[in-house]
């Protein structure tokens, strides 16, 4: 296989993942609305694709290295980050070879897996890592002398399928949720695309026409963003001449009919051009339908707004903090606490490694501390730190934006008291660890967690990642979880209400809570966060 063939295969892999995004997203262990594994893996690969989209190199190592470099920069979420490490390991495993042979493919897959394991400080089994490892181990054991690349790929895909099916046995939360690992699924989807086989959706899922995210594969199948259909009515029209002219204008051209009625369908980047042409030849147009094929892609993109980085006050300190936070109110709290840069992101909206890199580059401080504020964002932040070894960057793996706020208070405390960097980082980590956070949202599907049945749309409350209550109304879900949150030591309860909740409703909740916990102090903050109507921390 040469570089061009590898490029085609990688493009097919990206296209496959693009088609499977929703399916992968839905494999969320908790029925919460922040499943973004599919979107993250897709964006990671799409960023990788940009590096090779214009390349016509026939050198597999060059293509693989450039693709891997793009993936490292674009890595989002834990699975996207691990995928980028797999790609980098694979590219390094090629060892500058210009052609890919079956033996080299096997060797490079092992290098890919080993690099991905090395990149994760505490590898968890039952995830994308396991699928990568077991697939390559099975491949090595069962097909020591695979003769063609197709044989190797087929064996790899089969082994990955078997491994993925086994992930619930390795990771209890998967078993309980009745799903396979989303990242593993994403990897399988990519491998199948490379191999040239079908979607991971075994069953033929009805998809609306044009819903395969055409924008996502732009650069692979062409650049045509609009699906245009119309009927031309006239007299003595030359069907074959018009078909030739429409074919010159766009892609996927269908021109059928007779000399009085012609049905036209095509994909174009400018919908005005075929319509102008039809009018110019004197036809009357009927049933004009113009669809933007980018729309689904844009829906994906809307789930993943380009992270904006907002600037906080410049401080005299030689240590600066960069945090990921979402919701205007929560972001304001960060700025007030002297956070140098706030990257817009959070659950379900993972920034890419390169977003962290550009934030770090904007901050002149000698040392930068990053608060990823989500377990699924930390790995990309860590990868960013490793991609810019010339900058001193520490990632403090905070779990939520509220844990991060506790760390920010400790940062201010440390700076005021003249703490050195190590003390500062230690105090911030301790403050985050001491902080307890309740997150309340609505179930996106029926589920059963820890023997507790959850109906779709139930309000569910998590404390430090554990489901603590489920109820049909917010007040009850909150009330049931409280005993797990409030202890004799609790003094202060801070309620950040999300965009879905009105200040009045939030005020009423606080009123209930303050009657129940009369000894506590309360504060109510208009956080404006999405997905979680209530985030609540106690100190």
């Amino acid at each position, binding site marked *: 296989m040469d570089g061009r063939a590898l490029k085609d295969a990688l493009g097919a892999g990206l296209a496959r993942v693009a088609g499977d995004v929703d399916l992968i997203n839905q494999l969320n262990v908790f029925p919460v609305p922040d499943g973004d594994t599919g979107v993250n893996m897709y964006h990671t690969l799409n960023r990788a694709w940009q590096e090779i989209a214009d390349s016509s190199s026939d050198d597999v190592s060059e293509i693989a290295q450039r693709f891997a470099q793009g993936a490292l920069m674009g890595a989002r979420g834990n699975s996207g980050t691990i995928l980028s490490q797999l790609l980098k390991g694979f590219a390094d495993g090629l060892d500058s070879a210009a052609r890919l042979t079956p033996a080299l493919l096997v060797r490079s897959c092992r290098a890919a897996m080993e690099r991905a394991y090395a990149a994760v400080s505490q590898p968890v089994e039952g995830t994308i890592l396991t699928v990568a490892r077991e697939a390559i181990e099975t491949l090595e054991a069962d097909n020591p002398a695979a003769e063609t690349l197709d044989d190797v790929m087929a064996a790899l895909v089969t082994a990955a399928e078997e491994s993925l099916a086994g992930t619930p046995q390795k990771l209890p939360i998967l078993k309980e949720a009745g799903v396979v690992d989303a990242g593993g699924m994403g990897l399988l989807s990519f491998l199948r695309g490379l191999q040239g086989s079908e979607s991971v959706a075994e069953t033929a899922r009805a998809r609306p026409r044009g819903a395969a995210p055409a924008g996502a594969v732009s650069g692979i199948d062409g650049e045509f963003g609009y699906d245009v259909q119309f009927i031309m009515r006239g007299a003595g029209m030359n069907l074959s001449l018009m078909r030739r002219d429409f074919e010159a204008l766009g892609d996927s051209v269908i021109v059928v009919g007779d000399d009085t009625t012609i049905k036209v369908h095509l994909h174009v980047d400018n919908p005005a051009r075929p319509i102008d042409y039809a009018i110019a030849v004197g036809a009357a147009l009927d049933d004009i339908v113009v669809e933007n094929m980018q729309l689904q892609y844009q829906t994906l993109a809307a789930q993943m707004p380009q992270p904006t980085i907002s600037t906080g006050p410049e401080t005299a300190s030689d240590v600066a903090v960069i945090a990921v936070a979402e919701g205007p109110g929560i972001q304001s*709290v960060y700025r007030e*606490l002297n956070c140098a840069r706030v990257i817009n992101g959070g659950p379900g909206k993972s920034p890419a490694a390169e977003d962290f890199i550009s934030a770090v580059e904007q901050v002149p401080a000698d040392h930068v501390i990053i608060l990823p504020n989500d377990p699924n964002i930390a790995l990309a932040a860590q990868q960013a730190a490793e991609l810019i070894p010339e900058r001193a960057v520490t990632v403090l793996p905070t779990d939520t934006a509220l844990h991060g*706020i506790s760390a920010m208070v400790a940062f201010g*405390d440390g700076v*005021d*008291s003249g703490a050195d960097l190590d003390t500062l980082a230690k105090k911030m980590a301790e403050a985050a660890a001491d902080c307890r956070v309740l997150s309340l949202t609505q179930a996106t599907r029926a589920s059963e967690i820890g023997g507790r049945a959850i109906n779709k749309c139930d309000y569910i409350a998590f404390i430090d990642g554990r489901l603590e209550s489920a109820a049909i109304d917010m007040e009850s879900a909150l009330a049931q979880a409280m005993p797990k949150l409030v202890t004799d030591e609790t*003094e202060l309860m801070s309620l950040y209400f999300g965009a879905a909740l009105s200040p009045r409703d939030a005020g009423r909740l606080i009123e209930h809570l303050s009657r129940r916990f009369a000894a506590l*102090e309360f504060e109510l*903050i208009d956080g404006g966060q999405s997905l979680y109507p209530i985030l609540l921390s106690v100190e």
Partner: protein
Amino acid sequence: MTSRRIRIAADSVCDLPEEIVSAFGIGIIPTYISAGGESIPDDGHSLSRARFYRDLPGMRPYPTTAAPSPGDAEAFYRSLVEDGAEHIVSIHVPAQLSGTINAMRLGAEAAGADKISIVDSLQLTFGIGFQVWAAAELAASPDAGVPGILETIERVRRHTRVYAIIRTMEYLRRSGRVNAMAAGLGGLIKISPVIAVDDGEVKSIGRVRTWSRAVARLRELTLAQAPLCRLAILHVANESGAERFLDSIQDVAPSDTLVIETTPTVGTHIGPGAIGVATLSNDWRR
């Protein structure tokens, strides 16, 4: 007390109780609080501190504080001279925080500056008080000289620490002071600052989320200064809090530890509920 050659003077921000003031014949010039359209001298009887602090949260417009006028200062110095003072050592609230020193200088020029040494205490409340107290003790001995008194003041200052914890940033913001310090304390979330008076400035030296952590921090800061020669527990309308705090540091508190409701000149800025300490460590005598 007309026999004293060297008299010690201060402004009312020094927070020295009446017993000490009268025992050493210390001259105290009041600063002023402007509240409800009146300018009230902080002279210990024109203004009830308890009542003032009780009313403070609702006062509109918010009270302001004012230095004595140069005329007040001149009259103050003249009365001490008439009382027999050959030299006056006059110790005051820092120039960076108040116009008092400036007024005292102008008053001193009018009253005969050669007899008056004006000292910027670079401190507040009992941080000034310790300097005034030690200076007055020394001035009471017959062979005391001005240079020795000035040197004592300097030494006391070096071994003095003043810390406070504040219930809310609201009063600091209302008072329009310490803007730089209040950076990062904008009020979206509740933060209790830990402040220190150092070198004539009020600085934030820590910020915590809850009052009990603030109290714990104040305790740590106090214990770090032990062994103590003198200690004053300061408060703003929070005597019970101050007494509880004193209990918590009983092991290091000298027997003559004072619990002081601090002057409205300071309390207006930090607000009801605040607790503070002024410490003078034993080392100062060395």
